[in-house]
Protein backbone atom coordinates (compact mmCIF):
# COMPACT_ATOMS: atom_id res chain seq x y z
CA UNK A 1 0.00 0.00 0.00
CA UNK A 2 1.51 3.20 -1.10
CA UNK A 3 -1.18 5.48 0.24
CA UNK A 4 0.06 7.20 3.40
CA UNK A 5 -1.89 9.36 5.75
CA UNK A 6 -1.65 13.02 4.97
CA UNK A 7 -3.29 15.26 7.52
CA UNK A 8 -1.43 18.19 6.03
CA UNK A 9 -3.92 17.93 3.19
CA UNK A 10 -6.61 19.04 5.60
CA UNK A 11 -4.85 22.23 6.59
CA UNK A 12 -6.29 24.16 3.67
CA UNK A 13 -9.77 23.22 4.78
CA UNK A 14 -9.41 24.35 8.39
CA UNK A 15 -11.88 27.21 7.88
CA UNK A 16 -14.49 24.73 6.61
CA UNK A 17 -14.13 22.68 9.75
CA UNK A 18 -14.18 25.81 11.87
CA UNK A 19 -17.49 26.77 10.32
CA UNK A 20 -18.74 23.23 10.95
CA UNK A 21 -17.77 23.38 14.61
CA UNK A 22 -19.47 26.75 15.00
CA UNK A 23 -22.67 25.49 13.40
CA UNK A 24 -22.71 22.31 15.47
CA UNK A 25 -22.14 24.31 18.65
CA UNK A 26 -24.81 26.83 17.76
CA UNK A 27 -27.31 24.09 17.02
CA UNK A 28 -26.52 22.28 20.25
CA UNK A 29 -26.77 25.35 22.47
CA UNK A 30 -29.93 26.77 20.91
CA UNK A 31 -31.61 23.39 20.70
CA UNK A 32 -30.44 22.41 24.19
CA UNK A 33 -32.01 25.50 25.75
CA UNK A 34 -35.27 25.43 23.81
CA UNK A 35 -35.62 21.64 23.93
CA UNK A 36 -35.10 21.58 27.67
CA UNK A 37 -37.72 24.28 28.17
CA UNK A 38 -40.13 22.33 25.98
CA UNK A 39 -39.32 19.15 27.88
CA UNK A 40 -40.02 20.79 31.24
CA UNK A 41 -43.29 22.20 29.97
CA UNK A 42 -44.40 18.83 28.58
CA UNK A 43 -43.30 16.98 31.71
CA UNK A 44 -45.34 19.41 33.80
CA UNK A 45 -48.39 18.87 31.61
CA UNK A 46 -48.02 15.10 31.71
CA UNK A 47 -47.64 14.96 35.49
CA UNK A 48 -49.84 17.76 36.80
CA UNK A 49 -51.01 19.97 33.96
CA UNK A 50 -54.56 20.39 32.70
CA UNK A 51 -56.05 16.98 32.05
CA UNK A 52 -57.58 17.99 28.74
CA UNK A 53 -54.23 18.60 27.07
CA UNK A 54 -52.41 15.62 28.55
CA UNK A 55 -53.42 13.23 25.74
CA UNK A 56 -52.06 15.60 23.11
CA UNK A 57 -48.71 15.78 24.83
CA UNK A 58 -48.66 12.00 25.13
CA UNK A 59 -49.33 11.61 21.42
CA UNK A 60 -46.59 14.09 20.58
CA UNK A 61 -44.08 12.33 22.82
CA UNK A 62 -44.86 8.85 21.53
CA UNK A 63 -44.92 9.99 17.91
CA UNK A 64 -41.46 11.50 18.17
CA UNK A 65 -39.94 8.71 20.21
CA UNK A 66 -41.17 6.03 17.84
CA UNK A 67 -40.10 7.48 14.51
CA UNK A 68 -36.62 8.11 13.07
CA UNK A 69 -35.12 11.55 13.48
CA UNK A 70 -34.16 11.70 9.80
CA UNK A 71 -37.81 11.31 8.80
CA UNK A 72 -38.85 14.02 11.26
CA UNK A 73 -36.25 16.31 9.75
CA UNK A 74 -37.26 15.53 6.15
CA UNK A 75 -40.91 16.00 7.03
CA UNK A 76 -40.22 19.48 8.37
CA UNK A 77 -37.83 20.50 5.60
CA UNK A 78 -39.35 18.82 2.55
CA UNK A 79 -42.88 18.04 3.73
CA UNK A 80 -44.06 21.25 5.34
CA UNK A 81 -43.57 23.42 2.23
CA UNK A 82 -46.43 21.41 0.72
CA UNK A 83 -48.73 23.06 3.27
CA UNK A 84 -47.13 26.43 2.78
CA UNK A 85 -44.53 26.42 5.56
CA UNK A 86 -41.09 26.81 4.05
CA UNK A 87 -38.14 26.98 6.41
CA UNK A 88 -34.50 27.57 5.71
CA UNK A 89 -32.23 24.62 6.44
CA UNK A 90 -31.01 26.07 9.73
CA UNK A 91 -34.54 26.85 10.95
CA UNK A 92 -35.75 23.43 9.89
CA UNK A 93 -32.84 21.76 11.67
CA UNK A 94 -33.46 23.73 14.86
CA UNK A 95 -37.18 23.02 14.80
CA UNK A 96 -36.69 19.31 14.16
CA UNK A 97 -34.07 19.00 16.89
CA UNK A 98 -36.09 20.97 19.44
CA UNK A 99 -39.18 18.91 18.77
CA UNK A 100 -37.09 15.76 19.08
CA UNK A 101 -35.26 16.74 22.26
CA UNK A 102 -38.48 18.04 23.80
CA UNK A 103 -40.08 14.61 23.58
CA UNK A 104 -37.14 12.70 25.04
CA UNK A 105 -36.46 15.33 27.70
CA UNK A 106 -40.14 15.21 28.66
CA UNK A 107 -39.92 11.56 29.56
CA UNK A 108 -36.61 11.91 31.37
CA UNK A 109 -37.79 14.91 33.40
CA UNK A 110 -41.12 13.26 34.12
CA UNK A 111 -39.28 10.42 35.84
CA UNK A 112 -37.48 12.98 37.97
CA UNK A 113 -40.73 14.69 38.91
CA UNK A 114 -42.44 11.44 39.77
CA UNK A 115 -39.68 10.55 42.22
CA UNK A 116 -40.58 13.57 44.36
CA UNK A 117 -41.45 12.39 47.88
CA UNK A 118 -45.08 13.01 48.83
CA UNK A 119 -43.95 14.96 51.87
CA UNK A 120 -42.61 17.72 49.65
CA UNK A 121 -46.07 18.30 48.19
CA UNK A 122 -47.71 18.14 51.61
CA UNK A 123 -45.26 20.59 53.14
CA UNK A 124 -45.78 23.00 50.24
CA UNK A 125 -49.55 22.67 50.46
CA UNK A 126 -49.50 23.28 54.21
CA UNK A 127 -47.55 26.47 53.51
CA UNK A 128 -50.42 27.62 51.29
CA UNK A 129 -48.46 27.33 48.05
CA UNK A 130 -50.43 26.71 44.89
CA UNK A 131 -49.73 23.67 42.75
CA UNK A 132 -47.90 25.76 40.19
CA UNK A 133 -45.79 27.47 42.85
CA UNK A 134 -45.00 24.09 44.33
CA UNK A 135 -43.84 22.80 40.98
CA UNK A 136 -41.80 25.85 40.21
CA UNK A 137 -40.09 26.36 43.57
CA UNK A 138 -40.11 22.97 45.27
CA UNK A 139 -40.40 20.13 42.77
CA UNK A 140 -38.53 21.23 39.67
CA UNK A 141 -34.97 21.76 40.84
CA UNK A 142 -34.53 18.49 42.76
CA UNK A 143 -36.29 16.68 39.90
CA UNK A 144 -33.77 18.03 37.40
CA UNK A 145 -30.93 17.16 39.73
CA UNK A 146 -32.10 13.55 39.93
CA UNK A 147 -32.06 13.08 36.16
CA UNK A 148 -29.21 15.41 35.24
CA UNK A 149 -26.89 12.60 34.03
CA UNK A 150 -29.61 11.18 31.77
CA UNK A 151 -30.37 14.64 30.46
CA UNK A 152 -26.70 15.19 29.72
CA UNK A 153 -26.52 12.00 27.68
CA UNK A 154 -29.62 13.01 25.76
CA UNK A 155 -28.06 16.35 24.96
CA UNK A 156 -24.98 14.63 23.59
CA UNK A 157 -27.23 12.47 21.43
CA UNK A 158 -28.93 15.62 20.17
CA UNK A 159 -25.57 17.09 19.31
CA UNK A 160 -24.81 14.04 17.21
CA UNK A 161 -28.25 14.49 15.66
CA UNK A 162 -26.89 17.63 14.08
CA UNK A 163 -24.81 15.30 11.88
CA UNK A 164 -28.04 14.08 10.35
CA UNK A 165 -28.94 17.67 9.53
CA UNK A 166 -26.05 17.81 7.07
CA UNK A 167 -28.47 15.88 4.87
CA UNK A 168 -30.43 19.08 4.31
CA UNK A 169 -27.24 21.08 3.75
CA UNK A 170 -26.79 22.43 7.25
CA UNK A 171 -23.08 23.18 7.26
CA UNK A 172 -22.09 21.38 10.43
CA UNK A 173 -19.01 19.23 11.12
CA UNK A 174 -20.32 16.27 9.13
CA UNK A 175 -21.15 18.51 6.21
CA UNK A 176 -17.61 19.86 6.37
CA UNK A 177 -16.09 16.39 6.35
CA UNK A 178 -18.25 15.32 3.42
CA UNK A 179 -17.36 18.45 1.53
CA UNK A 180 -13.62 18.09 2.12
CA UNK A 181 -13.35 14.45 1.17
CA UNK A 182 -15.29 15.14 -2.01
CA UNK A 183 -12.67 17.75 -2.91
CA UNK A 184 -9.39 16.14 -1.91
CA UNK A 185 -10.47 12.48 -1.77
CA UNK A 186 -8.90 12.13 1.68
CA UNK A 187 -11.92 10.42 3.25
CA UNK A 188 -9.93 8.72 5.99
CA UNK A 189 -8.31 11.89 7.24
CA UNK A 190 -11.48 13.95 6.90
CA UNK A 191 -13.59 11.56 8.93
CA UNK A 192 -10.88 11.00 11.54
CA UNK A 193 -10.80 14.74 12.00
CA UNK A 194 -14.60 14.89 12.22
CA UNK A 195 -14.58 12.06 14.77
CA UNK A 196 -12.04 13.83 16.95
CA UNK A 197 -13.97 17.08 16.74
CA UNK A 198 -17.20 15.39 17.81
CA UNK A 199 -15.37 13.60 20.60
CA UNK A 200 -13.88 16.84 21.88
CA UNK A 201 -17.21 18.66 21.68
CA UNK A 202 -19.04 15.84 23.44
CA UNK A 203 -16.52 15.81 26.30
CA UNK A 204 -16.75 19.59 26.47
CA UNK A 205 -20.54 19.44 26.58
CA UNK A 206 -20.49 16.88 29.40
CA UNK A 207 -18.05 19.03 31.33
CA UNK A 208 -20.23 22.08 30.76
CA UNK A 209 -23.26 20.23 32.06
CA UNK A 210 -21.31 19.16 35.15
CA UNK A 211 -20.37 22.77 35.82
CA UNK A 212 -23.91 23.95 35.24
CA UNK A 213 -25.04 21.37 37.77
CA UNK A 214 -22.69 22.83 40.36
CA UNK A 215 -24.38 26.20 39.93
CA UNK A 216 -27.95 24.94 39.72
CA UNK A 217 -27.72 22.35 42.48
CA UNK A 218 -25.66 23.59 45.39
CA UNK A 219 -26.31 20.36 47.27
CA UNK A 220 -24.07 17.82 45.62
CA UNK A 221 -25.67 14.78 47.15
CA UNK A 222 -28.61 13.41 45.22
CA UNK A 223 -31.65 13.99 47.36
CA UNK A 224 -34.32 11.46 48.11
Amino acid sequence: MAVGLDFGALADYAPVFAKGVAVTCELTLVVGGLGLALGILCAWVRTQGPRVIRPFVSIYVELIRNTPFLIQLFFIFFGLPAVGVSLGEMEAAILAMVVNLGAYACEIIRAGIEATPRGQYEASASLAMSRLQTFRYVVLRPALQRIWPALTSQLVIVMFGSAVCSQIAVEDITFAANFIQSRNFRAFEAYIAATLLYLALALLLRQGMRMLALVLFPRRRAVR
Partner: protein
Amino acid sequence: MSLIAVTEVRKRFGANEVLKGINLDVAPGEVIAIIGKSGSGKSTLLRCINGLETIDEGSIMVAGAQLADDELHLRALRLKVGMIFQGFNLFPHLSAGRNVMLSPMVVKKISAKEAEAEARARLAQVGLEHKFDAYPDELSGGQQQRVAIARALAMRPLALLCDEITSALDPELVNEVLQVVGKLAEEGMTLLMVTHEMRFAREVCDRVVFMHQGRVHEIGPPDIVFESPKTLELRQFLGMT
Protein backbone atom coordinates in the same frame (compact mmCIF):
# COMPACT_ATOMS: atom_id res chain seq x y z
CA MET B 1 -65.71 31.38 70.12
CA SER B 2 -63.63 28.40 69.11
CA LEU B 3 -60.78 28.80 66.67
CA ILE B 4 -61.21 25.35 65.19
CA ALA B 5 -64.60 23.69 65.18
CA VAL B 6 -64.81 20.10 64.00
CA THR B 7 -68.40 18.89 63.75
CA GLU B 8 -69.56 15.34 63.02
CA VAL B 9 -66.69 14.74 60.63
CA ARG B 10 -66.61 11.45 58.79
CA LYS B 11 -63.85 10.24 56.53
CA ARG B 12 -63.68 7.05 54.51
CA PHE B 13 -60.88 5.47 52.54
CA GLY B 14 -62.88 3.21 50.24
CA ALA B 15 -64.95 0.99 52.49
CA ASN B 16 -62.77 1.75 55.50
CA GLU B 17 -64.36 4.44 57.65
CA VAL B 18 -61.45 6.03 59.46
CA LEU B 19 -63.21 8.95 61.17
CA LYS B 20 -66.67 8.12 62.46
CA GLY B 21 -68.23 11.39 63.51
CA ILE B 22 -65.59 13.51 65.19
CA ASN B 23 -66.54 16.54 67.28
CA LEU B 24 -63.86 18.79 68.64
CA ASP B 25 -63.74 22.48 69.50
CA VAL B 26 -60.42 24.18 70.02
CA ALA B 27 -60.33 27.56 71.73
CA PRO B 28 -57.75 30.18 70.76
CA GLY B 29 -54.52 29.58 72.66
CA GLU B 30 -55.54 26.09 73.67
CA VAL B 31 -52.99 23.29 73.56
CA ILE B 32 -54.43 19.87 72.80
CA ALA B 33 -52.71 16.52 72.69
CA ILE B 34 -54.22 13.71 70.63
CA ILE B 35 -53.29 10.24 71.73
CA GLY B 36 -54.41 6.80 70.67
CA LYS B 37 -53.37 3.52 69.13
CA SER B 38 -51.85 3.23 65.68
CA GLY B 39 -54.59 3.38 63.07
CA SER B 40 -57.10 5.14 65.30
CA GLY B 41 -57.28 8.07 62.87
CA LYS B 42 -55.13 10.70 64.60
CA SER B 43 -53.13 11.69 61.54
CA THR B 44 -56.20 11.59 59.34
CA LEU B 45 -57.97 14.03 61.65
CA LEU B 46 -55.09 16.52 61.50
CA ARG B 47 -54.78 16.12 57.75
CA CYS B 48 -58.49 16.82 57.33
CA ILE B 49 -58.22 20.00 59.39
CA ASN B 50 -55.48 21.22 57.09
CA GLY B 51 -57.30 20.11 53.96
CA LEU B 52 -54.70 17.53 52.98
CA GLU B 53 -57.56 15.03 53.01
CA THR B 54 -61.11 15.82 52.01
CA ILE B 55 -63.91 14.92 54.40
CA ASP B 56 -66.98 12.92 53.43
CA GLU B 57 -69.43 14.36 55.95
CA GLY B 58 -69.60 17.00 58.63
CA SER B 59 -67.92 20.37 58.72
CA ILE B 60 -64.66 21.97 59.77
CA MET B 61 -64.49 25.67 60.56
CA VAL B 62 -61.28 27.56 61.14
CA ALA B 63 -61.54 31.10 62.49
CA GLY B 64 -65.10 31.31 61.28
CA ALA B 65 -64.38 30.15 57.72
CA GLN B 66 -65.77 26.91 56.40
CA LEU B 67 -63.39 24.39 54.91
CA ALA B 68 -64.27 23.82 51.26
CA ASP B 69 -62.23 21.77 48.88
CA ASP B 70 -61.48 24.13 46.03
CA GLU B 71 -57.91 25.35 45.85
CA LEU B 72 -58.71 28.96 46.69
CA HIS B 73 -60.51 28.14 49.93
CA LEU B 74 -57.95 25.53 50.87
CA ARG B 75 -55.12 27.99 50.49
CA ALA B 76 -56.97 30.58 52.54
CA LEU B 77 -57.41 27.96 55.24
CA ARG B 78 -53.78 26.94 55.13
CA LEU B 79 -52.74 30.53 55.68
CA LYS B 80 -54.38 30.21 59.08
CA VAL B 81 -53.24 26.72 60.03
CA GLY B 82 -49.66 25.51 59.78
CA MET B 83 -48.58 21.90 59.91
CA ILE B 84 -45.43 20.15 61.09
CA PHE B 85 -44.74 16.62 59.93
CA GLN B 86 -43.05 13.61 61.39
CA GLY B 87 -40.51 13.54 58.55
CA PHE B 88 -39.68 17.30 58.63
CA ASN B 89 -40.19 17.64 54.86
CA LEU B 90 -37.71 20.46 54.46
CA PHE B 91 -36.91 21.45 50.89
CA PRO B 92 -33.52 19.81 50.33
CA HIS B 93 -32.29 22.21 47.66
CA LEU B 94 -32.77 25.29 49.83
CA SER B 95 -30.80 26.49 52.85
CA ALA B 96 -32.57 26.67 56.20
CA GLY B 97 -33.09 30.39 55.74
CA ARG B 98 -34.45 29.95 52.22
CA ASN B 99 -36.78 27.21 53.42
CA VAL B 100 -38.29 29.71 55.84
CA MET B 101 -38.34 32.56 53.30
CA LEU B 102 -39.92 30.70 50.39
CA SER B 103 -43.58 30.69 51.25
CA PRO B 104 -43.80 34.26 52.60
CA MET B 105 -42.19 35.37 49.34
CA VAL B 106 -44.18 33.38 46.82
CA VAL B 107 -47.50 33.22 48.65
CA LYS B 108 -47.60 36.49 50.55
CA LYS B 109 -45.45 38.27 47.96
CA ILE B 110 -43.35 40.06 50.53
CA SER B 111 -39.94 41.36 49.46
CA ALA B 112 -36.82 39.23 49.80
CA LYS B 113 -35.45 41.67 52.36
CA GLU B 114 -38.53 41.49 54.56
CA ALA B 115 -38.69 37.73 54.16
CA GLU B 116 -35.07 37.41 55.21
CA ALA B 117 -35.63 39.50 58.33
CA GLU B 118 -38.67 37.40 59.15
CA ALA B 119 -36.74 34.18 58.55
CA ARG B 120 -33.90 35.27 60.81
CA ALA B 121 -36.35 36.17 63.55
CA ARG B 122 -38.20 32.84 63.25
CA LEU B 123 -34.94 30.86 63.20
CA ALA B 124 -33.84 32.75 66.30
CA GLN B 125 -37.12 31.79 67.92
CA VAL B 126 -36.22 28.11 67.51
CA GLY B 127 -32.60 28.72 68.52
CA LEU B 128 -31.10 28.31 65.04
CA GLU B 129 -30.22 31.83 63.90
CA HIS B 130 -26.67 30.63 63.24
CA LYS B 131 -27.91 27.96 60.79
CA PHE B 132 -29.45 30.35 58.28
CA ASP B 133 -27.13 29.23 55.48
CA ALA B 134 -26.95 25.54 56.38
CA TYR B 135 -28.66 23.04 54.09
CA PRO B 136 -31.04 20.43 55.50
CA ASP B 137 -28.52 17.62 54.93
CA GLU B 138 -26.09 19.51 57.15
CA LEU B 139 -28.51 19.59 60.08
CA SER B 140 -29.41 17.03 62.70
CA GLY B 141 -32.96 15.71 62.79
CA GLY B 142 -33.78 17.90 65.76
CA GLN B 143 -32.45 20.96 63.99
CA GLN B 144 -34.33 20.10 60.82
CA GLN B 145 -37.56 19.81 62.75
CA ARG B 146 -36.93 23.16 64.40
CA VAL B 147 -36.37 24.72 60.96
CA ALA B 148 -39.68 23.18 59.89
CA ILE B 149 -41.34 24.84 62.87
CA ALA B 150 -39.73 28.18 62.00
CA ARG B 151 -40.91 27.73 58.41
CA ALA B 152 -44.49 27.20 59.54
CA LEU B 153 -44.31 30.14 61.97
CA ALA B 154 -43.09 32.49 59.25
CA MET B 155 -46.57 32.30 57.72
CA ARG B 156 -47.98 33.67 61.01
CA PRO B 157 -50.55 30.90 61.45
CA LEU B 158 -53.31 31.09 64.05
CA ALA B 159 -52.78 27.45 64.92
CA LEU B 160 -50.21 24.73 64.40
CA LEU B 161 -50.95 21.08 63.76
CA CYS B 162 -48.15 18.72 64.80
CA ASP B 163 -48.21 15.08 63.75
CA GLU B 164 -45.79 13.06 65.88
CA ILE B 165 -43.10 15.60 65.28
CA THR B 166 -40.56 13.90 67.54
CA SER B 167 -41.19 10.31 66.47
CA ALA B 168 -38.50 10.25 63.80
CA LEU B 169 -35.85 11.68 66.12
CA ASP B 170 -33.12 10.00 68.09
CA PRO B 171 -34.05 10.10 71.79
CA GLU B 172 -31.39 12.65 72.66
CA LEU B 173 -32.82 15.10 70.09
CA VAL B 174 -36.43 14.90 71.24
CA ASN B 175 -36.09 17.44 74.01
CA GLU B 176 -34.76 20.32 71.94
CA VAL B 177 -37.88 20.10 69.77
CA LEU B 178 -40.26 19.68 72.69
CA GLN B 179 -38.73 22.73 74.35
CA VAL B 180 -39.49 24.82 71.30
CA VAL B 181 -43.06 23.55 71.25
CA GLY B 182 -43.42 24.16 74.97
CA LYS B 183 -42.26 27.73 74.52
CA LEU B 184 -44.79 28.25 71.71
CA ALA B 185 -47.51 26.92 73.98
CA GLU B 186 -46.49 29.35 76.72
CA GLU B 187 -46.59 32.23 74.28
CA GLY B 188 -50.20 31.41 73.51
CA MET B 189 -49.97 29.57 70.19
CA THR B 190 -52.90 27.27 69.53
CA LEU B 191 -51.54 23.76 69.18
CA LEU B 192 -53.11 20.51 68.14
CA MET B 193 -50.56 17.77 68.47
CA VAL B 194 -50.55 14.05 67.96
CA THR B 195 -47.91 12.75 70.32
CA HIS B 196 -46.55 9.74 72.11
CA GLU B 197 -44.72 11.91 74.62
CA MET B 198 -47.13 11.39 77.52
CA ARG B 199 -45.08 13.32 80.06
CA PHE B 200 -44.92 16.31 77.74
CA ALA B 201 -48.64 16.09 77.01
CA ARG B 202 -49.30 16.09 80.69
CA GLU B 203 -47.14 19.09 81.46
CA VAL B 204 -48.01 21.32 78.55
CA CYS B 205 -51.51 20.52 77.34
CA ASP B 206 -54.80 22.00 78.40
CA ARG B 207 -56.77 19.02 77.15
CA VAL B 208 -56.05 15.51 75.99
CA VAL B 209 -58.06 13.72 73.31
CA PHE B 210 -57.98 9.95 73.30
CA MET B 211 -58.98 8.57 69.93
CA HIS B 212 -60.12 5.02 69.45
CA GLN B 213 -61.38 3.42 66.25
CA GLY B 214 -62.17 6.70 64.55
CA ARG B 215 -63.94 8.33 67.46
CA VAL B 216 -63.06 10.73 70.25
CA HIS B 217 -63.25 8.14 72.96
CA GLU B 218 -62.33 10.32 75.92
CA ILE B 219 -61.47 13.97 76.28
CA GLY B 220 -60.53 16.10 79.24
CA PRO B 221 -57.78 17.87 81.17
CA PRO B 222 -54.57 15.85 81.38
CA ASP B 223 -54.74 15.05 85.10
CA ILE B 224 -58.21 13.56 84.71
CA VAL B 225 -57.47 11.69 81.49
CA PHE B 226 -54.19 10.29 82.74
CA GLU B 227 -55.09 9.78 86.42
CA SER B 228 -58.62 8.48 86.20
CA PRO B 229 -59.46 7.22 82.74
CA LYS B 230 -63.10 6.28 82.50
CA THR B 231 -62.98 3.69 79.74
CA LEU B 232 -61.34 0.31 79.54
CA GLU B 233 -59.72 1.19 76.18
CA LEU B 234 -57.93 4.22 77.59
CA ARG B 235 -56.82 2.28 80.66
CA GLN B 236 -55.44 -0.38 78.35
CA PHE B 237 -53.76 2.23 76.18
CA LEU B 238 -52.12 3.78 79.21
CA GLY B 239 -51.03 0.37 80.41
CA MET B 240 -53.09 0.56 83.57
CA THR B 241 -55.04 -2.66 83.33
